[in-house]
């Protein structure tokens, strides 16, 4: 029975709303920066991460890994290790069902290519072939040294372009080592290019990178012998995806596998799937008779053996008309996939198809190749390929604008998508604040006074420039399962305190807080009443996971529905008691109101007394599930409406380039983000700032390197991350477009702010010193070299 409550507010309701003092963050909390619901635990050090958890009799587990990049496994001899005192269990593929798992089973079944423990073949240095559990870490390490693996070495290939050549060693049964091929083709790009006034070709390279969550992967597995159940405590973004893969590979039913998420020290896409370590912790526990087994990754393991960013090569050829309208975008994308597919298919898809959300384009052809190499596995990382494509596309667009002598902002405004439109590939965009993002950010940054003005800093070798990058992202997408739903339960206790159970995994982004705000607002009660219990597969409803900026939108809608359901249950009892029409009732600011008669009937506590009274005795348990309305994407063409909502973003960078040293100082950045509605503005800003900081790291120094398939800079001392002094001032502008599908108009966010960062900076550098850096990271060496080349070109011309 849908009740449209919000439109019925008048007299009493309005006065109740008006009488909430503005400093009261807790009543009607949506849109207010309430403190994190779990914040006290985090600031006092009391919050428990899996890393902190200790269970009686707990063993330490270690993975047995391949030391070679490519080989057949002839034999694994664990006998000496088994005899080592303190070793409790050793597992190899022999102990498993040899079932493959993957991350894109629904749309890309052929990419399900990894076994929990490889049986016959290893494909990169670090490939998991077994695991050891022992009484402590030293013993487990000692056991690893006693394990003899007999390999039949195969030739290895580390470079993706080499891997595609005929005769290259085949890593899987995939032609040319192309694990995923995505031809995306619309309109008639060849004709459009011919008819264009200006055509240019550019090649861009975006390096590999690491997630660097502060908490590495940690898991504890425990098998319960009397019930034959498995419990896994793991540092994850997607407990239900981990459960699905565990149940599949262990051949158990979903309700025999319990995955529990505690506090999580960051994810950024690196904790989205089951890793062999999760499987091993469970199976080792079973083999050791039910003792809990903890496997903690060291920082070195985290760098070398978890997941990494796909390095990508973009070859683009596009054309524009003199008036600035885009004629066609064409090209090829090559993504270095490493040994297995992981989230590769969707990363590649996102790296191509995001363009449709940003630019109105009728003629398009980009073919994507995800290539197997004998290197660590590339997977999901914040931005899902959009960071690499953001750099390539947004740099390319700037060059196209320059080519016809048009201001890059004007060029973008001419070509961007608009509200309520369907793109060439059938994406249905509803709310769209991209134009406002661009106009407001450029205005705040003083674009017209700075762009192309060749300003200098304090000294004449300090050249200033300004650049823009824009982006869009899915904010509630369906790409992995038949359904990609979220569920919430709201349980209201006798004393009026409220439990929110959500499947969504808060990994630090603050979803427990935002969802609790949504619950409080929808119920009409104070945020202080809410306690949130999240992401325990045995207790909470299903949620696909925290990724693709989906939680606020999908889990938010589920929570909204659950809260409305609970509210109706309360109002039904009140209506019965007062013999009035339920449609006249609402709960606003902690009070039950009869809107029709404009009277406050009782406060929320009294209403709960009534629900739990002798006469009514009704438990209030609201439930809600939400599955975004999308159409399945046909990945052979790229056609389909992948997401329930789309979010937009414009970013401006102002830089000062030191032409003597090649150093770039980012003076300030502006970020305007269409987030629909900021449920918690402070959290939104923090997401933007954090995302942007990651983008700055990726622009200037994050570059995960490999030597013969082995990570070459896999420690924090070698792989530099942004620190407090490296982040410029950031001005965030929140554009609230009130999405028609979003809970209170909200869309997701969290990833879009890193998509255009590298390009915005590269474009600003170009504006400052007229050199173009096309490969990341942008180092002083590259800038100096480009300046040298520019100088000698000029001299050559003048001769």
């Amino acid at each position, binding site marked *: 029975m849908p009740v449209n409550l919000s439109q019925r507010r008048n007299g009493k309701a309005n006065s109740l709303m008006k009488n909430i003092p503005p400093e009261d963050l807790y009543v009607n909390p949506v849109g207010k920066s309430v403190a994190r619901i779990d914040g006290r635990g985090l600031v006092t050090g009391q919050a428990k991460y899996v890393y902190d958890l200790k269970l009686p009799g707990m063993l330490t587990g270690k993975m047995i890994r391949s030391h070679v990049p490519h080989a057949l496994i002839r034999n694994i001899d664990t006998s000496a290790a088994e005899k080592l005192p303190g070793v409790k269990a050793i597992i190899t593929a022999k102990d498993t069902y040899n079932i493959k798992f993957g991350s894109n089973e629904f749309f890309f079944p052929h990419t399900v290519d990894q076994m929990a423990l490889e049986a016959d073949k290893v494909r990169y240095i670090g490939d998991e072939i077994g695991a050891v559990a022992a009484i402590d870490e030293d013993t487990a390490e000692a056991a690893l040294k006693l394990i003899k693996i007999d390999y039949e070495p195969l030739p290895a290939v580390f470079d993706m372009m080499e891997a595609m050549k005929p005769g290259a060693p085949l890593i899987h049964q995939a032609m040319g080592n192309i694990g995923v091929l995505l031809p995306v083709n619309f309109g008639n790009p060849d004709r459009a290019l011919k008819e264009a006034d200006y055509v240019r070709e550019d090649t861009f390279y975006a390096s590999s990178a690491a997630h660097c969550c502060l908490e590495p992967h940690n898991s504890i597995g425990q098998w319960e012998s009397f019930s034959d159940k498995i419990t896994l405590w793991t540092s994850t973004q997607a407990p239900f995806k981990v459960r699905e893969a565990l149940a599949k590979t262990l051949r158990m039913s979903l309700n025999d596998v319990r995955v529990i998420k505690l506090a999580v020290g960051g994810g950024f896409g690196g904790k989205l799937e089951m890793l062999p370590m999760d499987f091993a912790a469970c199976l080792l526990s079973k083999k050791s008779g039910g003792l809990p087994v903890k496997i903690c990754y060291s920082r070195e393991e985290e760098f070398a053996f978890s997941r990494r960013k796909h390095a990508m090569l973009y070859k683009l050829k596009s054309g524009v008309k003199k008036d600035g309208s885009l004629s066609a975008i064409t090209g090829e994308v090559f993504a270095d996939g490493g040994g297995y597919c992981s989230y590769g298919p969707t990363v590649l898809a996102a790296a191509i198809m995001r363009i449709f959300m940003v630019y109105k384009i009728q003629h398009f052809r980009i073919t994507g190749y995800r290539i197997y190499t004998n290197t660590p596995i590339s997977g999901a990382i914040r931005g899902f390929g959009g960071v690499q494509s953001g750099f390539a596309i947004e740099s390319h667009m700037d060059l196209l604008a320059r080519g016809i002598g048009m201001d890059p902002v004007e060029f973008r405004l001419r070509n961007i998508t608009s509200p309520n439109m369907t793109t060439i590939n059938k994406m249905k965009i509803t709310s769209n604040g991209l134009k406002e993002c661009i106009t407001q950010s450029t205005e705040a940054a003083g674009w017209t006074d700075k762009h192309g003005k060749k300003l200098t800093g304090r000294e004449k070798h300090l050249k200033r420039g300004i650049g823009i990058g824009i982006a869009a992202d899915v904010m509630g997408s369906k790409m992995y399962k038949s359904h990609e739903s979220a569920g919430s339960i709201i349980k209201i206790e006798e004393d009026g305190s409220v439990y929110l159970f959500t499947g969504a995994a808060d990994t630090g982004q603050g979803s427990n807080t935002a969802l609790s705000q949504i619950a409080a607002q929808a119920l009409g009660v104070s945020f202080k009443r809410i306690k949130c219990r999240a992401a325990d597969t045995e207790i909470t409803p299903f949620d696909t996971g925290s990724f693709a900026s989906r939680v606020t939108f999908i889990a938010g809608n589920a929570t909204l529905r659950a809260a409305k359901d609970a509210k109706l249950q309360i109002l039904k009892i009140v209506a019965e008691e007062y013999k009035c029409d339920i449609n006249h009732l609402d709960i606003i600011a902690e009070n039950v109101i009869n809107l029709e008669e404009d009277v406050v009937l009782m406060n929320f506590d009294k209403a709960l007394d009534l629900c739990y009274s002798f006469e009514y005795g009704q438990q209030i348990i609201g439930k809600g599930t939400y599955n975004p309305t999308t159409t399945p994407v046909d990945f052979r063409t790229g056609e389909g409406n992948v997401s329930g909502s789309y979010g937009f973003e414009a970013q401006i960078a102002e830089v000062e380039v030191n032409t003597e*040293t090649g150093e770039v100082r980012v003076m300030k950045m502006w970020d305007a983000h269409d987030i629909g509605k900021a449920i918690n503005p402070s959290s939104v800003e923090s997401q933007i700032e954090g995302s942007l900081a990651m983008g700055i790291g990726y622009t200037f120094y994050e570059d995960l390197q490999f030597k013969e398939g082995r990570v070459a800079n896999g420690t924090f001392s070698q792989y530099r991350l942004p620190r407090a002094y490296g982040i410029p001032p950031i001005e965030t502008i929140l554009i609230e477009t009130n999405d028609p599908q979003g809970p209170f108009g909200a869309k997701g966010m969290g990833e879009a702010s890193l998509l255009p960062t590298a390009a915005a900076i590269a474009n600003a550098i170009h504006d400052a010193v007229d050199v173009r850096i096309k490969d990341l990271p942008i180092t002083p060496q590259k800038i100096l070299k480009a300046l040298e080349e520019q100088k000698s070109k000029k001299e050559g011309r003048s001769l």
Partner: protein
Amino acid sequence: MDLNPFQYHAPQSLKEAADLYFKLSQVKLLAGGTMLLNSLKTAKKKGLKTPQHIISLKRIPELKDIRREEGGLSIGAMTTFADLIRSPLVSQELRNILRQIGTTQIRNMGTAGGNLTCRYTWTELGTVMMSLNALLSFYNPKGESYTETAAEFFAKQAKTKDILTHIRVPGPEPRAVGYYRLPKTSPLDVPLFAVCISAECAKGTFQDTVITINRGTSFPCRYRELEAQLNGKTMTPETISEMYPLIQPQAFDPHCEGYKGHMYKIGIRDTLKNLIKGHRDHG
């Protein structure tokens, strides 16, 4: 456990520490620990041999003092970077240099003696102390104290077996000093190189200039050719402009090329700028 087992010793006096240290084998001295304990962890991970004994010097009061004495400033080897930065006895210019080294925690833990003797590439203090003509006092197995210049110490290839007890920075008038490290923005990175220049500045001219360069190896070196050209010149921006084209990085780092060679020149020039500015501000 991150470390392999060892016997931990905590002597209360230099004599006691020295007796233990020279008697035991497979032994290491522990100062601030930022270098040693990290390398012992790495050694354990790699399965390398690690020492049986660790002698902590933390409880020896005589190694912790900072004193003004005739002929200069005396710094106990166990003085931390943070101690030096806080001490009013240390010149403002030296304190500003020390602030650029390491992170807050590293400066709170790392000691002057540890930094000089570990002979790792980030022994940044070595470059500075060489430039300041510092003297290092050691304690040897015979129970004798002896002194050598920082330059003499760094000219030797092998790590010392003796115990560094004090560092003496000549004075009383502080020399003008400038410092530059690359990268500038990240104190954590092992620098690609660092430059320290100090000079007497009688009558506003460069006198007795010492230019030391950490080339990213354990051996800071002098750049004597430029020192000679600087001596007698006035401390003005014009002198720097005049000197800049004369800087030839190949003179002290024959294999430097491209970016590093280019940046050496800029580094030396900017060090001179810092020196003049510092001298004006503090001198």
